[in-house]
C-alpha cells in the first residue's frame, strides 16, 4: 500500500552524560551543591531500596519492589519539581517521591504494611499506586485542577513500560493533550514488566512514539543519565508552567533486581542483560563525572553515604518504636464520619481486641 503510514524512525535516546561518564550534550546549569544533592538523592534511593529488601527478608517489611538501577530516572524526575507540584507514581517510585520531598519514614510505614502515618503530609505525592497505570489519569486530573484554579503548579504521572498497555494510561495521554494540562507523563521503561520484556509489551519500537497518536510531544531519554533526565524534566515542567501543555517522556533504564521480593527473575531473564546494564549504572556514571570535576572525592562520598545510612537507620528505629496503629483505624478512614453500621462493627472489633489482650495477659 503506497501511502501507508509506517512508524517513523525515532531519534536515539537523548543523552548528556554517556556511560563512560563523558559529556556528550549540554549539561543543565546546576551548582556543585545541586549536583551533589542529586548524587545524594540517588544514593538514598538505592540504600533505602536495599534496606527495605533486607527488612522484608527479616519479616520486618511486606512485599517490596526494589528500584536499584533506576535511581537517575527517579531522582531526575523528582528533583526539578517545586513544592506545589503534584506527583502520582507506583510502588516503584520511592526515589522520585523522596526527591520530591517525602520523608524516608513515611515510606517505611507503608512498606511495613500500615497506611501512611497520620502526621505525614504527603508533599503533594499521591499514595503509591498498586493498580497499574491508574495513577496517570489522577496526575492529569491534578494538572487540570491546577489550570482551572490558576495555580502555579504542575503534575507528574509516572508509570512503567508494562503500564503503557493499560487503557487508562492511553486515556491519560489523550486527556492531557485535549485539555492542554500542565502535566508531565513519564514512562519509566525498565525493560520488564515482571516477566514480560518490553519488546513483547508492544510492537512499537519506542514508548515515546505513543505521544504522536495523542498529539502530546514526547521525548526518548537515557534514563540512567541523571543530567539528561533532570534537564528534560525541567524543560517539560517549564513548558507546562508556561501554559504550553503536556509532555511525554520515556526513560530508558533497567530494573537490576527482582520485580519484587516475591519474584525470581532467573526464571525468565537472560543474565547477559544484567552485565550490559551494570556498565550503564546511573550512580557510577555520575560519580565519575563528579570525581573528574573535583566536585566529590572518595572521602566526601563516604561521608555522604554514612549520613544517609544513619538517616535511614534512625528512621527505621523511629517507626519501629511507634506504637502500632490499631486495626480500629479502618473504621475512621473509610468515610469522614463512620456510618452507624461501621460504629457497630467497631464494637465487635474492640471485643476481639480485648479478648486477645486478655489472652496475652493470661499468658504473661
Amino acid at each position, binding site marked *: 500500500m503506497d501511502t501507508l503510514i509506517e512508524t517513523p524512525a525515532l531519534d536515539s535516546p537523548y543523552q548528556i552524560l554517556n556511560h563512560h561518564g563523558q559529556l556528550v550534550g549540554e549539561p543543565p546549569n546546576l551548582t556543585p551543591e545541586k549536583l551533589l544533592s542529586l548524587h545524594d538523592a540517588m544514593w538514598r534511593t538505592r540504600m533505602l531500596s536495599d534496606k527495605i529488601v533486607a527488612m522484608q527478608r527479616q519479616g520486618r517489611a511486606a512485599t517490596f519492589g526494589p528500584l536499584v538501577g533506576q535511581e537517575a530516572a527517579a531522582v531526575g524526575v523528582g528533583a526539578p519539581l517545586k513544592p506545589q507540584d*503534584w506527583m*502520582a507514581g507506583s510502588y516503584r517510585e520511592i526515589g522520585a517521591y523522596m526527591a520530591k520531598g517525602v520523608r524516608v519514614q513515611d515510606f517505611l510505614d507503608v512498606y511495613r504494611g*500500615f*497506611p*501512611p*502515618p*497520620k502526621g*505525614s*503530609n*504527603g508533599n503533594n505525592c*499521591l*499514595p503509591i499506586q498498586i*493498580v497499574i497505570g*491508574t495513577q496517570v*489519569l*489522577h*496526575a*492529569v*486530573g*491534578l*494538572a*487540570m*485542577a*491546577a489550570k*482551572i*484554579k490558576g495555580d502555579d*503548579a504542575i*503534575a507528574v504521572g509516572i508509570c512503567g513500560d508494562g503500564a503503557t498497555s493499560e*487503557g*487508562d494510561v492511553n*486515556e*491519560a495521554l*489523550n*486527556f492531557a493533550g*485535549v*485539555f492542554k494540562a500542565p502535566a508531565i507523563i513519564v514512562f519509566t521503561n525498565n525493560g520488564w514488566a515482571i516477566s514480560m520484556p518490553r519488546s513483547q509489551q508492544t510492537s512499537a519500537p519506542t514508548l515515546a512514539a505513543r505521544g504522536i497518536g495523542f498529539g502530546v510531544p514526547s521525548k526518548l531519554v537515557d534514563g540512567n543519565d541523571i543530567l539528561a533526565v533532570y534537564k528534560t524534566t525541567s524543560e517539560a515542567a517549564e513548558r507546562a508552567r508556561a501554559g504550553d501543555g503536556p509532555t511525554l517522556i520515556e526513560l530508558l533504564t533497567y530494573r537490576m533486581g527482582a520485580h519484587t521480593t516475591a519474584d525470581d527473575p532467573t526464571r525468565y531473564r537472560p543474565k547477559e542483560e544484567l552485565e550490559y546494564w551494570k556498565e550503564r549504572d546511573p550512580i557510577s556514571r555520575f560519580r565519575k563525572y563528579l570525581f573528574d570535576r573535583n566536585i566529590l572525592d572518595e572521602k566526601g562520598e563516604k561521608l555522604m553515604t554514612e549520613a544517609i545510612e544513619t538517616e535511614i537507620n534512625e528512621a527505621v528505629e523511629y517507626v519501629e518504636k511507634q506504637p502500632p496503629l490499631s486495626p480500629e*483505624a*479502618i473504621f*475512621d*478512614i*473509610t*468515610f*469522614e464520619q463512620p*456510618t*452507624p*453500621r461501621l460504629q457497630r462493627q467497631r464494637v465487635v472489633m474492640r471485643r476481639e481486641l480485648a479478648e486477645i489482650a486478655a489472652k496475652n495477659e493470661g499468658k504473661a
Partner: protein
Amino acid sequence: MTIAENVNPAVSHKPASKLTMIEAINQSLRIEMERDERVVMLGEDIGRNGGVFRVTDGLQARFGERRVFDTPLAESGIIGTAIGLAINGLRPIPEIQFAGFMFVSFNQIVSQAARMRFRSGGMYTCPMVIRAPFGGGVRTPEMHSDSVEGVFLQTPGLKVVLPSNPYDAKGLLAAAIEDPDPVIFLENIKLYRSFKQEVPEERYVLPLGKAAVVQEGSDLTVFAYGAMVSVSLEAAKQVSQETGASIEVIDLRTMWPLDEETITASVEKTGRAVIVHEAPRAGGIGAEVTAIINENCLYSLLKPVARVTGYDTPFPSPQLEDLYLPTPRRVAWAIRETLED
C-alpha cells in the same frame, strides 16, 4: 445558538414552582455551582449539548467552559481525572452518560475514588458526585436501562443515592455535593419528565442515609426507591382498597448507607415486608434489606420478606422489558401473599 436560547427556564431567576426532575436537578446544580466555586462538571455532551437529557442545559453558558466541560469519550478518563480534580481541591461532578457505562470506569470508581481516603490514611480525599441516568420503562438501547446500585454495596467507600421525585432529587443532590466522600447519584430516566412537583426555589438539603416514610401504615411495609416508589404506591392502593389493609410505603432514597433504623422500626411495627427494585434479585438491595430485617427484628416478622425485582437475567431488549420490570400487579401479588396469615 445564543446564550439566551440555551438557558432553561429552570435556571432563570423567576420563582420556580412546579418542576420536573430534570429541572429540579438542573436547578440544584446551578445553586451549588453558584454557592461553591470549587464545584465543576465534566462528562460527555454535558456542555454545549446540555446533556443527552438536557439535565445540564444552560450550565456551560452560565458558568463557562472552565467549570462545565465536555470530555473525550472515555469513562475511565472521566472518573480518573475527576479524582485528580477532587484531590486538588475541586468538587467535581462527573457525569456518566448512562449508568451501565460506569462499568467501563469501574476500577476508577471502586478501587480509586472509593479508596483514596482509606489508602492515604485520611491524607487525600475524593469528594465528588458521580451522576448517571438509568432505569427501565423507556425503551432504550442495551446497557442504558441497567440498575447498578446493588453492585456498590460490595465496594466500600461509596455512598449511593437514588431519588424518587423532583423535591428529593434537589435536596439530596445538594447533600451529595456537600459530602466529603464520593457519592454515586443515580437518576431514573423514567422519572425525568413523568411528573412535576412543587419545589422551593431556595436551597435546601436532605440528609443522606435517611429513608422517607411516603405513606404510613400498620399492617405491612413496602420498601422501594426510584421509579418503584410510585409502582409500590399504586399496588398498595389497590390492595388497601380490596382488603382494607393499612400499608406503609418507605422510599429508601439512599442505598448506602441504608437507613437501618427506619427499616427496623417499620417492620417492628408492621411485621410484614415487601421489597421492590428494578435491579436483578440476586445480591441486590433487597437481599441486604432482608438481611437487615433478619438481624434486627426477626421476631417481629410474621411472614417471609418478599422481594419483587427484576428477574435474574440481563436487562432485556425494549420489546421484552415491560414484563421484566416489577409491575403494580406483581407488587400487589406479593403484598397480598405477605398479608395472608
